[in-house]
């Protein structure tokens, strides 16, 4: 299936948004008012769950950041400093890490002992502020985080101009960059019928070695723990653009559930990215608390839930997207048993049990939760 990426925005869109931000400030200055930017509040109180679209979203609350306010002046200046640096990146068509950006924008303010930024912890939130303010992802501003995650499968894509056939990448796979926007990654040829996102690199390697993707026409991707932005954004795009179902395989513990939850709904901290990252239709294939019985696993693979696990599980019981009966049953079961289970536990039934038995059966029998 061929998919010409449908461009949601014209190229240069972000650059013009940045310019518009600057022009807005100049207009305010000319008008003689206290120049200020309105920044959507990235606070828990301003996060809400949109049931219809079933994603986490930022609310309408904004915070004002004004120049002529002793508490805000520095951040106001920093916001424009970062914006200006991003504009330079876009102009030069270069990407850089947020750590790099910190060094690019850091310098002493003339005639003082103060720096524009004292440490990266100061510049990172400013980047996030800028993202929400101009409603663009950092990746769209050519800022990236370090690569994490790998992908193989029956798919060909163009990465920064190079065509990559994801069937021929050996044991390592294609390293997923953090920027996977349309201008960098374009999908070419796709024969896959589904995407499988697994939590762990080890499991991914097992499945790759077993050529699971080939047998089941799948795209196999992992995020090495919590799925990074690049992986999530790529999944989002593949689901949207290639119209593929996304299956998620994580440990049977609250953290695994949380990884799934973030892939599905977006994180609370970065709720603003949800629209372009969340995959509400992501399917949770495992491991389920009912799997040990279903697959007759021996009880010696269980690990006791510790206190933080319990707490996290109880918290998640209250998440609106886990409200449905099936989910409640799933989590109550885990809490009732008081045990958790790693994906690797399946190896107790044989090293390729997961690729030959477990996954095919679960997908076939549609034993997944949404």
């Amino acid at each position, binding site marked *: 299936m061929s998919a010409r990426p449908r461009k949601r925005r014209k190229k240069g869109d972000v650059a013009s948004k*940045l*310019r518009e*931000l*600057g*022009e807005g*400030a*100049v207009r305010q*200055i*000319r008008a*003689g008012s*206290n*120049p200020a930017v309105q920044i959507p509040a990235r606070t828990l109180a301003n996060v809400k769950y949109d049931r219809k679209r079933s994603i986490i979203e930022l609310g309408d609350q904004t915070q004002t950041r004004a*120049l*002529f306010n*002793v508490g805000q*002046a*520095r951040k*106001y*200046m920093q916001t*424009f*400093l970062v*914006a*200006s640096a991003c*504009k*330079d990146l876009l102009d030069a068509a270069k990407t850089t890490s947020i750590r790099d950006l910190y060094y690019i924008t850091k*310098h002493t*303010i*003339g*005639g*003082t002992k*103060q720096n*524009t930024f004292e440490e990266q912890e100061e510049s990172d939130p400013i980047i996030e502020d800028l993202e929400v303010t101009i409603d663009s992802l950092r990746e769209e501003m050519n800022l990236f985080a370090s690569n994490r995650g790998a992908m193989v499968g029956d798919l060909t894509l163009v990465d920064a101009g190079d065509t990559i056939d994801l069937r021929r990448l050996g044991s390592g796979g294609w390293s997923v960059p953090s920027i996977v926007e349309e201008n960098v990654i374009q999908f070419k040829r796709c024969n896959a019928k589904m995407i499988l996102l697994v939590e762990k690199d080890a499991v991914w390697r097992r499945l790759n070695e077993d050529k699971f993707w080939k047998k089941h026409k799948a795209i196999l991707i992992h995020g090495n723990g919590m799925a990074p932005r690049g992986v999530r954004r790529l999944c989002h795009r593949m689901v949207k653009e290639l119209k593929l179902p996304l299956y998620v395989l994580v440990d049977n513990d609250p953290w695994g559930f949380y990884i799934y939850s973030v892939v599905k709904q977006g994180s609370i901290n970065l709720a603003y990215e949800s629209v372009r990252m969340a995959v509400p239709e992501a399917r949770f294939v495992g491991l389920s608390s009912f799997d040990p019985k279903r697959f007759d696993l021996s009880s010696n693979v269980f690990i006791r839930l510790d206190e933080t696990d319990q707490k996290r599980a109880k918290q998640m019981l209250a998440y609106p997207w886990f409200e449905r009966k099936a989910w409640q049953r799933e989590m109550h079961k885990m809490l009732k048993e008081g045990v958790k289970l790693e994906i690797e536990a399946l190896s107790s039934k044989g090293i390729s049990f997961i690729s030959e038995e477990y996954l095919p059966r679960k997908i076939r029998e549609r034993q997944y939760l949404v």
Partner: protein
Amino acid sequence: MDVRIRRSTGSPVVLGETDAEMEPVEAPVAGVPMQAAGRGAGGRRKSTRAVSKKRGEKKTRAKPARKRGTKPRRAGKVTTAKRAPAARTAGAGNGSGQGKANGAEPAPATKRAPAKTRRRMSAESMAGRQREISVSEFFTKNRHLLGFDSPARALLTAVKEGVDNSLDAAEEAGILPSVRVELVEIGDDRYRVVVEDNGPGIVKSQVPKVFGKLLYGSKFHRLRQSRGQQGIGISAAGMYGQLTTGKPVVITSKTGKGRSAHHFEIVIDTSRNTPEIIEDHTVKWERDHGTRIEIELEGTYKGGRRSVDEYLEQVAIANPHAEILYQPPKGRAPVHLPRAAEELPPEPTEIKPHPYGVELGALQSLLKETKARTLSSALQQEFSRVSAKVAERIVRTAGLEPRRRPRDLKPAEVESLHRAIPRVKIYAPPPSCVVPIGEHLVRCGLEREIQAEFYACTTRPPSVYRGNPFQVEAGLAYGGALRGFVEEDGSPHSTGRDADAQQGPITLLRMANRVPLQYQQSACATFNATVDTNWRQYGLPQPKGALPQGPMVLLVHVASVWVPFTSESKEAIAHYPEILKEIRLALKECGRKLGGYLRRREHQKREERRRGIFAMYIGELVESLGNLTRVDRSKLQKELSRLAARHTDGDAEAIVAPTRRVRGRRKAAKEEAR
């Protein structure tokens, strides 16, 4: 009002005991006015009455009170009763002949059984010892009462008496005063004090009495605002000099152009309180008119607090119309304190006493001596603000006949008349009799002497205590040079409450009828009113029950036709509630102005800090916005600076300067990088 103290009146038992210890060595001299002695001892009418009435009870109290630091109010009253122990102290101290004679007297009364004493003395034997004491003798022994107790204070007091007189005389003659003070060190702890003025001079015949007789002066018998009041000042200084150095007072005086100047050398015969002329000849003097006095005395010169130097500076503050030339001793540079005002203060008018506050005894003698033939006209003639109507009302209220002959009033009737006075509404005394320095000139005076950053002055409307009009004014100078040295790291003085507290207590300048008061601060009404005022509400730190703290000089001036001092040395103002109240009100007014200033300054500092912050970021912002939008950077910079000024209560200049530098440096840095 002339209730006189006669040594033979009062309780003989009590007096006898005192006399036994006090017996003067020399015989009383006929002709020394008893009247003067009474005034001198009491210092003021109220006091004399108190002495005559209460001497019995006072006698016993006097003992503990004899040292310096006596309870202020009492000092005036108990003079007579107190003199016995005080004289002993003084006598032993200076080793004068009289003192020795006294030292040989029997042991103090406290060691004797009173009953025994009484039996020893008969009224007749006591009568043999009862005789007059010359006022000069009295003050020879009690020189601390006049401010000559320590050598340092003696030097200051001598200068003070001379300068007070010079200013009084010049002003009264309508001359802008120019006073020259010179201190010449002529040996160990020996100085010649020279005070010279451009006043009207003193006529030849008066010179000996003025300088050689205590309680001789032109100012006592009238109610008029002046520095001198008692007729003691300069002769006491001369007497002290004579006592400690044996040298006469030297006076040169000239009363007008073309007249000859007279040169006198005078000593006081203390036992008779009369002048003795040693030299009297005419001399040539380049001045048109004026007086020059020279007194040689035992004294110590020191700088700093309560020094002659400081005193003269304060004189200049209180008398902006006076020019002062000062030649300090020990080869120090001469000091010139020029005039800050070229006009004399308005002349204070002389008034009669106001009926409010007149004392019973005074009323009694007044009615006896008046020339008026009816009670009503007596009241009108002898008092100010008493019209026929008011007089009638007073008399009727007292249940008396207005046509009665004043002399015929019985004591009980005088008493009811006295009681009636406060029940009748009488206008306050005419305010023209008190002349304040004035708000503007207080400020000029402070500005001339103190480079402060803020000044506030207040002159209260005139008010009355005990029938005497008075007026209070206050001025303050805050910050600036008063803040002392620059911080260690060379940064400018820190400000704010903490810094103020580090400065320690403020300096209080106390003035009475334009005379700076130097000693007995804590006994003074001005001090107490200052301590009682809550300065914290005006932004100054103030420990409980103490002066406020900070780089501040506070001036309080009390002007009155009769300033109620707590003692003859005229150092502390008595605590009349009316005076305290007026001082407090004046301080409050000044305090409010200071509070406003300190708040404004605090605000400004905050705004400056804000401006600094904005200025710092504006440079960066201009760079960023310039890059994002290609707007004209220097124009944007100007617009932002203007805006910053608008948002921080400041002028744009303050912002432009630092940010330009910021931009310049960044540009340079960029170019360097390339």
